């Protein structure tokens, strides 16, 4: 069996609502998604280590959705939603923060996995 390695996509399609809600999808660069989700879920004034931990968690979560093709395998035409009830926050068009942007750029290729698994 060929092992499929997790990868960081160029872009990600975000559904701007709950999965069954009639809402638009937007396709954005993956790094922007990470910077936006981090800006929406944490404050940039927090400690560096807290920001890094959150960015890793957000990245791992999103990469899992991509790797497992969670929504497409259930018949949806997007990769992730923008609501914390189902996934994580993403506010389309919002501003981001320079320090979080920098950390996201550094950590976009890093994810957390369980021992013995390769899946994010």
């Amino acid at each position, binding site marked *: 069996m060929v092992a499929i390695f997790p990868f960081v996509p160029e872009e990600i399609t975000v559904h701007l609502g709950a999965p069954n809600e009639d809402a638009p999808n937007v396709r954005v660069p993956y790094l922007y998604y990470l910077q936006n989700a981090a800006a929406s879920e944490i*404050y940039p*004034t927090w400690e560096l280590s807290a920001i890094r931990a959150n960015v890793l968690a957000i990245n791992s979560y999103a990469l899992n959705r991509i790797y497992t093709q969670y929504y497409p395998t259930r018949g949806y035409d997007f990769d992730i939603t923008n609501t914390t009830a189902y996934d994580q926050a993403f506010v389309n*068009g*919002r*501003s*981001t*923060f*320079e320090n979080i942007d920098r950390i996201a750029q550094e950590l976009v290729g890093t994810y957390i996995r369980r021992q013995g698994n390769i899946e994010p």
Partner: protein
Amino acid sequence: MTAGTILVAVTTSDAQIPIEDAEITIEQSAQPDYRTLTDESGLTLPFAVAAPPASESKNPGTPTPYSTVTVTVRRDGYETERRTGVQIFPGTQTRQRISLMPVLPTMPDQIESEATPPQNL
């Protein structure tokens, strides 16, 4: 008084091409409007905005630890865009990226507005 800064980056065509000479207006309550133009990279200089002290964002349950501004971007030939509720934190630079859509000269200029919801963590 603690302050943060905001930098606006204006592009078009799905964020591929920077727009020069776009007119940026930054409005805050109780302050005069700040107007500037973007340079050839589509960027403004960072602009300082007063913000609550950083200690207010460290614990849950404190009042809103950021100040908000409204950013409006105008350029001939493109649809005007406005972002409200843009958050400014102390000691941090906020980057507001805005992508403009070209419009035909005959179309009336509507303002596309997006609001950032309040974020109380």
